[in-house]
């Protein structure tokens, strides 16, 4: 079985994240860059399957700037077998459809039985790239699933929100996007870190994919930073905090 995991490098959510004032794009240089936590969980889903089915090949694919290579190296050190980096200046500022078009072209070239992605990235929070990729490839997709079970010829999972819980499955080849309900990822082992450096990591330009940029695109037209919030009053409880709080809520007309 060949599993491709789609990995995105994002600004670390633990730090301050910045939008560039002129383009409205994420200013990647302003923050530490990490592999998105949800993509580590996606990789964990693939690695867990590989633990029980040794002849599984796990390939990582990312589209991103030069530094995104670090995210791939981390994934390799966690146990993936090889990685593909789509790196091209013409891809800067890609919207969801352009990103999905590029990823789908590379997946067609790479071949796959199963594609595993995160449900939504922490920077864009779009959550539509997986469905787009599946549609462009003409394969079924299970989006926003957890409790994933993979067998030789199918994948299943649970898809749940505050209105419904669905039990879903798809025959392979297919794509799944997993939620935070999936288990935390393992840490790279020392051996993993040592062997990661020798694992194949290929870099592809957009032209090498033989795809075309979509003609429709979305564009950020304005961008305003909101003033940061300031701290108010803090009291230490001496047994009367409850009634002081009620006084405050009354004064502010909140109750």
């Amino acid at each position, binding site marked *: 079985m060949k599993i491709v995991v789609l990995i995105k490098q994002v600004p670390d959510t633990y730090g301050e994240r910045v939008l560039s004032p002129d383009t409205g794009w994420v200013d990647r240089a302003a923050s530490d860059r990490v592999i998105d936590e949800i993509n580590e969980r996606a990789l964990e889903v693939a690695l867990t399957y590989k633990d029980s089915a040794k002849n599984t090949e796990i390939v990582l694919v990312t589209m991103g700037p030069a530094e995104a290579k670090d995210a791939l190296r981390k994934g390799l050190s966690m146990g993936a077998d090889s990685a593909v980096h789509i790196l091209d200046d013409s891809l800067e500022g890609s919207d969801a459809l352009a990103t999905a078009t590029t990823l789908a072209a590379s997946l067609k070239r790479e071949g796959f039985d199963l594609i595993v992605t995160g449900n*939504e990235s922490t920077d864009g929070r779009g959550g539509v*790239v997986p469905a787009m990729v599946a549609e462009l490839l003409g394969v079924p997709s299970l989006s926003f699933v957890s409790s994933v079970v993979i067998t030789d010829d199918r994948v299943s999972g649970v898809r749940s929100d505050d209105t419904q819980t669905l*039990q879903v499955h798809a025959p392979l080849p297919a794509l799944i996007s997993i939620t935070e309900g999936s288990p935390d990822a393992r840490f790279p082992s020392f051996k993993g870190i040592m062997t990661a450096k020798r694992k194949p990591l290929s870099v592809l330009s957009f032209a090498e994919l033989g795809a075309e940029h979509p003609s429709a695109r979305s564009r950020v037209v304005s*961008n305003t930073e909101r003033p940061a919030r300031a701290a108010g009053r803090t009291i230490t409880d001496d047994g009367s*905090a409850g009634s002081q709080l009620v006084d405050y809520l009354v004064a502010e007309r909140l109750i």
Partner: protein
Amino acid sequence: MTDIVVFVETSVSGELRPSAAELLTAAARLGSPVAVVVTTAPLDASTAADLGALGAATVFNAVSRLLTTSLTGVQTAALAKAVEQFSPAAVILSNTLDGRDIAGRLSARLGAAVLLDAVDLRLDAGTIVATHSVFGGAYLTESSVDSGLAVVTVRQASIEGSAPAAAGQLTSVEIESQPLTSGVIDSIDDIVVASNRPELRGAKTVVSGGRGLGSAEKFVLVEQLADALGGAVGASRAAVDAGYIPQSHQVGQTGITVSPQLYFALGISGAIQHRAGMQTAKTIVAINKDEDAPIFEIADFGVVGDVFSVVPQLIDALNSRKP
């Protein structure tokens, strides 16, 4: 006037989800709303009339037996048909799991660009402009599509007001073939919400609890305060991970974004990812026994104290005010 297609979500039994009103309100600002409803049996006249009252000029009912076995496939096919028939300027969906899945499928199928998680929509000299709240409300951005159809998802509980009532003219199509690219639904459980608390999204008051509550049993304190204030119950990811409360209550980066009049953080440290989901609240109250907890940096009223002594005092004081 240009048509604007709206995807109306329903429960398994065919009841309209609350998002229908919001989406029709947004659509009416941009053009003439066409409500697309996908059902297993033909829509009854009263539901079409309800949609008309909410602003739908046309109700386009796609009927398919496959709805309950094909994961978002029928809905995508229905919207593609509606786009063919009405040549709308936009397709508007709710930013739910289904909404995003269908938006992605439709965009890729039609080669149309997307505008995602809009908190507002307006028409600017004939161009549809979406407003987005980025990085937990730290930025407001506006976006539009260069040309052609815009596929738009709208954040739940973000559009205010209502649309003028319209005709709700009902037309129907049937969708028969099994969409090849769909996942298969084996079973559906509608979640019946037993409580009479307000929905977390859009609630005026939200009371959230964190790891500081210590256990699922003791998390009841959060619910008691929520009930005393008539508010909704939220939680930090740590509280969800510890099993105190289901994930659908998670507030933050990877949970729900709330923007209530009043937000209570009980036993929550105020990690940046939690703040990303609540820092646009009008008033923030925090109770935490660690005076250095980062939540105090953004709280309008902070109490350094133990939730198990402060919150019962507070509930007593609130209850004694009631007649």
